[in-house]
């Protein structure tokens, strides 16, 4: 019996020893020294971020950046950043998606970096991206990547349905939907995924809707979710749903991936990063895909929406906001850093110079050597859309409302009216000033 304990105790001692060693190792990497270079911590959920930080550290002897890759997922990452601010453990710099910037600002988590020269790099970025990081004269981050929208479609299926050129307008898209559905009862031109809030918001964005705006003088929010532009989009999809011309399968689901692969979902209005999803989900369909600009509401126009995209922000509580802003600016204007971002990580850059990198302008073999990124680069995204100060609640309510409208076959426009009321109520409950 004694030997049982001896063995266990010995094992435990070894494990504790390992723990101590590993802790010591970890402590060596943590920013605790008071002298020497300024220590900055950088959080991101992109893969492979350490290489850029290493280059920065080599060229900036007075600043040392530790890049940490954090778990992504909106329910993990943002609560973590906010609680780290509250506990005084926040990173100095962090990747924040555009859609979460107002939420983070209303939680007091972001530093206005206009005072640290952020505006001097403004001209290097796409204006639609820059509009996402500013509020009035304040700048809450440097834009990293953007998600302009285009139409991914299956050339082979469109051809089989007798469609010679991709739909230039939404009216044509509806006509093509009929042709594609005539290929078979399982064939749909696209899916209308009721839970995909970001997707539907980007379509609203394209139609000129601005769901939120802020009166900076009075710090008051205005909510216009059920505007005429939004209702136009809702009525359009309502019609396709009523006629059974679009599938309602959830995007990114197993069935959806299989349908893209088989061609029973023949197109996908999506952001530039959708190419990674298409090439991975439907690997065997190489050569059958193409990209066209988004179908337009007005023939001859060139307006798109934006789905996704993120910025590098300086986080409240940092002891070195100036150096943190310097890193953010360097990270997204330095050619070496941008090259790694575009080539290794896969950004579609918000930086205009980076959009002429060979990775962006070269033909894509999966899409029969079409230069698809150019189509996204030319997509004209209105700089009018503003995200709400409590995105998590808005998206939860929106998902519920749209889902129940689709499931119960009640009007989508009614879901927008309901969402409008809910969101105003939510903002009131969170003590956020709302203008009626």
């Amino acid at each position, binding site marked *: 019996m004694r030997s049982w304990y001896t063995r266990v105790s010995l094992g435990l001692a070894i494990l504790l020893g390992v723990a101590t060693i590993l802790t010591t190792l970890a402590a060596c990497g943590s920013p605790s020294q008071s002298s020497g270079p300024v220590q900055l911590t950088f959080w991101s959920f992109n893969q492979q971020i350490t290489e850029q930080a290493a280059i920065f550290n080599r060229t900036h002897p007075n600043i040392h950046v530790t890049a940490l890759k954090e778990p992504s997922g909106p329910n993990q990452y943002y609560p*973590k950043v906010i609680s780290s601010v509250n506990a005084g453990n926040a990173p100095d710099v962090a990747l924040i998606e555009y859609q979460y910037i107002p939420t983070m600002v209303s939680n007091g988590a972001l530093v206005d970096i206009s005072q640290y020269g952020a505006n001097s790099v403004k001209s290097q970025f796409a204006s639609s991206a820059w509009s996402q990081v500013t509020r009035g004269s304040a700048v809450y981050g440097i834009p990293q990547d953007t998600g302009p929208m285009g139409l991914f479609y299956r050339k082979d299926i469109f051809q089989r349905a007798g469609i010679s050129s991709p739909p230039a307008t939404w009216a044509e898209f509806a006509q093509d939907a009929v042709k594609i559905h005539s290929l078979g009862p399982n064939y749909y031109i696209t899916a209308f995924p009721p839970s995909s809030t970001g997707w539907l918001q980007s379509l609203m964005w394209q139609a000129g809707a601005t769901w939120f705006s802020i009166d900076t003088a009075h710090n008051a929010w205005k909510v216009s979710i059920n505007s005429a532009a939004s209702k136009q989009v809702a009525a359009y999809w309502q019609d396709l749903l009523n006629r059974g011309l679009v599938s309602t399968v959830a995007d990114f689901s197993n069935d959806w991936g299989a349908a893209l692969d088989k061609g029973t979902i023949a197109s996908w209005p999506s952001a530039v990063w959708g190419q*990674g999803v298409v090439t991975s*989900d439907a690997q065997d369909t190489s050569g059958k895909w193409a990209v066209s600009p988004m179908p337009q509401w007005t023939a001859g126009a060139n307006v798109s929406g934006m789905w996704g995209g993120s910025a590098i922000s300086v986080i409240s509580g940092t002891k070195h906001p100036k150096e943190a802003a310097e890193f953010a600016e360097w990270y997204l204007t330095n050619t070496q850093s941008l090259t790694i971002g575009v080539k290794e990580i896969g950004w579609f850059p918000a930086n205009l110079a980076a959009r002429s990198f060979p990775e962006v302008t070269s033909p894509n073999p999966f899409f029969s050597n079409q230069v698809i990124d150019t189509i996204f680069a030319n997509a004209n995204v209105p700089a009018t859309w503003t995200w709400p100060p409590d995105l998590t609640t808005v998206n939860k309510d929106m998902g519920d409302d749209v889902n129940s409208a689709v499931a119960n076959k009640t009007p989508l426009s009614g879901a927008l009216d309901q969402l409008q009321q809910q969101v105003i109520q939510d903002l009131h409950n969170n003590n956020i000033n709302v203008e009626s």
Partner: protein
Amino acid sequence: MATTPLDLDQRSRREPENQRLVGARLLSTKNIAAYIFLLALTVYFLTPLYWLAISATKNNTDLFSSFGLWFAHFNLWQNLYETFTYGNGEYVRWIINTALYAVVGGFLSMLISVMAGYALAKYNFPGRSLVFTLVLGAVLVPPTTLALPTYLLMSKVHLTNTYWAVLLPALLSPVGVYLARVYATAAAPDDILDAARVDGAGEFRIFWQVALPLLRPGLITIFLFQFVAIWNNFFLPLVVLSDPTLFPINLGLATWNFDPASHELLFNLIVTGSLISVLPLIVMFLVLQRYWRAGLAFGSVTG
């Protein structure tokens, strides 16, 4: 708490001659219904695991486009290779971390629980029932609700982002203390302890050399409980750790999640990594199930 087992217990004591009848009763309608119910439960519990095992053999395309419950192109070796080598082998680091958190945390937590439980069961001291009531109350508090307060405490003493931030909170297990008290009451008879006292053994020696061996099945149950709890804990490490080299597996896998800005999709690695991460739990349960079952039955009858 455990009326049915007690019932069965009395019946079998009263009618030992009926034991052969039990075999005949196996085929009664009641039993067939029970078997079907158990079979359904087995399918219910094993299907996700089956899906995980099948999916770990697929590449990204097949993950999304092939039937979920059957094989497509066999890509397991490639998946395993990529899982262990992606990002300079960070997955291996996460396995070591998880093992460290779960084994060290589980063992120390077991030790603390059994000491506390033994004291509550065997010593009479003022406030004993109050302490026990508090422990019982603490059983009802979901650990997730304590994660943020723990985080704030840890940052006050500058322990966030260290191994201790995960290990220290893992040491306390109210369920473990409760179980240990129940086992100690039943499995370490006062007579034996008194006999040891008469022989001149000190209290600590009695605990260590007389009581502990008697409590072994219970100890293993407590260890397994806490081991699994630490292994699966996501929220606490999520808030207290930010350095990926300290992450446990589940947190590490979350950093491989879909990120629109990256063109790499790592779903096949996440699935393969998840499969690997449940294997130690399965092995642990199979190896220790002898003790585990003994411990469980013990608790249910005497509770």
